[in-house]
């Protein structure tokens, strides 16, 4: 990387006169183009502006609204929300809101089942694809398709599949009266199956990339030292993939926590609230109850907790590395 300050210091005396003249004649922009710091400033400016626009101001507003009773139903403009200031009642409310905690519990349950399932399936598939075989590229492409399909469409597909008259019941030789999406016990299972179908390929993709990053020589060396493929896998491949596995798990956990589209299209959170995860809960509070200030309070709490977890995770990772 070029050290910007060092660059400017050494640049000045060495600069030919013609360049100087050139710069003067073309004004500010020509000068910018010769100074990495200034040009860098213009390069990051749009991104930083967007970030400020979407982070700083909204965050302040969210904090502000979360301390009031404001809702768009009132007909009061948002900046006059202070009129209904409630000194943190929303936060007190969320602590005792059973529905919220139930939704959170369902989200955690979904994550606790779906992410490990996807991980194990992905790991197994990646293991199968470690070695070259005829048709490998073809099968690989097929296995990747689910994650490229629009999540809402995935929701639709599984909505169709799990109809009483749909193919799942037919394949499993179940009667058409056997309900999935409207059954309190099986609706969540259907959602987990859909999420697993869509995102196991991502696990597979990441874990395979990690596995292929293990030098082939080391595996051969292991074999020649008398290790079976399985022993090599446990003693060389897995330990070497620690960080890749961590990346895959974190990535999927984050996305799984956010899950919305598939459930919304498949069950709308139903039956009842059986598949209502945190995102669906917030959606309902936003649009059905128009309880915006409460949603803002919940949102901020989630934001704060996740940031805390992320910071802990990052410092842990940094410590492990260093």
């Amino acid at each position: 990387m070029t050290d910007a300050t060092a660059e400017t210091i050494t640049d000045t005396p060495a600069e030919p006169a013609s360049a100087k003249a050139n710069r003067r004649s073309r004004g500010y922009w020509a000068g910018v183009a010769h100074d990495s710091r200034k040009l860098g400033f213009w390069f990051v400016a749009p991104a930083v502006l967007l970030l400020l626009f979407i982070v700083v101001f909204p965050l302040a507003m969210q904090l502000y609204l979360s301390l009031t009773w404001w809702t768009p139903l009132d007909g009061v403009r948002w900046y006059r929300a202070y009129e209904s200031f409630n000194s943190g009642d929303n936060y007190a409310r969320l602590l005792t809101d059973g529905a919220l905690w139930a939704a959170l519990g369902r989200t955690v349950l979904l994550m606790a089942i779906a992410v490990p399932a996807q991980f194990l399936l992905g790991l197994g598939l990646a293991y199968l694809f470690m070695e070259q075989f005829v048709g490998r590229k073809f099968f690989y492409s097929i296995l990747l398709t689910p994650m490229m399909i629009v999540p809402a469409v995935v929701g639709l597909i599984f909505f169709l599949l799990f109809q009483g008259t749909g193919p799942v019941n037919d394949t499993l030789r179940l009667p058409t009266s056997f309900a999935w999406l409207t059954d309190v016990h099986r609706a969540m299972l259907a959602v987990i199956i859909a999420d697993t179908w869509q995102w196991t390929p991502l696990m597979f993709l990441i874990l395979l990339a990690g596995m292929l990053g293990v030098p082939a020589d080391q595996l051969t060396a292991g074999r020649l030292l008398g290790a079976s493929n399985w022993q090599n896998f446990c003693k060389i491949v897995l330990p070497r993939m620690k960080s890749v596995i961590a990346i895959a798990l974190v990535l999927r956990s984050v996305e799984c926590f956010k899950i919305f589209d598939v459930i919304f299209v498949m069950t709308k959170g139903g039956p009842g609230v059986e598949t209502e995860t945190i995102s669906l809960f917030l959606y309902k509070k936003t649009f059905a109850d128009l309880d915006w200030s409460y949603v803002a309070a919940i949102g901020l709490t989630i934001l704060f907790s996740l940031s805390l977890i992320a910071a802990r995770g990052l410092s842990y990772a940094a410590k492990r590395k260093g």
Partner: protein
Amino acid sequence: MTSIQINNVTKRFGEFVAVDDLTLDITEGEFVALLGPSGCGKTTTMNMIAGLEDPSEGSISFDGSDLSGMRLQDRNIGFVFQNYAIFTHLTVYKNLAYGLEVRRVARSEVDRKSRAMAERMGLFDRLDESAGRLSVNEMQKLAIGRSAIVEPRVFLLDEPLSNLDASFRAYMRAELKVLQREFGQTMIYVTHDQIEAMSLADKIAIIDKGRLMQYGAALEVYNDPRNRFVANFVGSPRMNLLDGDLKHEAGRLRLVLAGGAEIPLAGQAAADFGQAKSTQKGSLGIRPQHIYAGERRSADDMEMKGHVEQIERVGPTRLAYLQVQETRFLSVDEQDRLRPGDEIAFYLTAEKSLAFDMATGDRLGGRLQ
């Protein structure tokens, strides 16, 4: 100790023939070098012995029993990779212990052997360090120790010295020789460096384009090359190989070189070429140390007249490039007398010259005394 039999092995990669009908018998306890230019099939040969590749045809046996179909992990082969393939995520200790641990050897035994091997390889102080932190030289030792600890039937080394710096390479060359004697295992060593092969191996197998050119003791290969390729490949400085047309005239045989220079063949050289009546184009091989200036030493030696083109000093020896018309002879200037530009007469020792048929590359005539 294990003997290795390679019987008529051919290996094809699609159209390309990497190894062509190779037969090689390696006696137990021998140190054998597979020598050849890069891409000659020597590494493929070794991979087949290790079981990393299967022969397209032919078979490989240890102690007379065929290996085909045997799983890699059951062959019990020590293999040192060119880049060592150290398990960099494990400690030095765990690297050494790997082969024993996967065999479910008792922990106390693993510990005892690993420590002993670390001691032997000079890695004892570093047992608990991550193997990724070792220097290249230490990795090399670790790689050898890791393979040796499981007491393999044969030891295979793939260009093991090519990544080392020059001084350590010389040390390791000597060390390898010692280790081989200590371990007493059959060792096969792949290299493109003929000096390495000559100084280390009991026997050298020279391979070119997948074919075995010659298999024999180092000196035998050097003194008595079976064909033009071996003559050209082995020895430093290189052997002079003088290609030309054979002319019979009044009972005398001459070799007319491309640039117009002529060699009046005499003695052993004349006899060797004379034997093969069908040979039209021949090649005379003579090592630089067998070309001399000054007094004629034997009546048979072949006299040439030319001038000294250039003098080059390689360590203690002076090499003289002698120009005769368009042909250049390389000679070792023993007496340290020649100066560039000198017009001189010099002699090719007939006793030491070798005759080759240009068409087949084969050696003509008999063994050298």
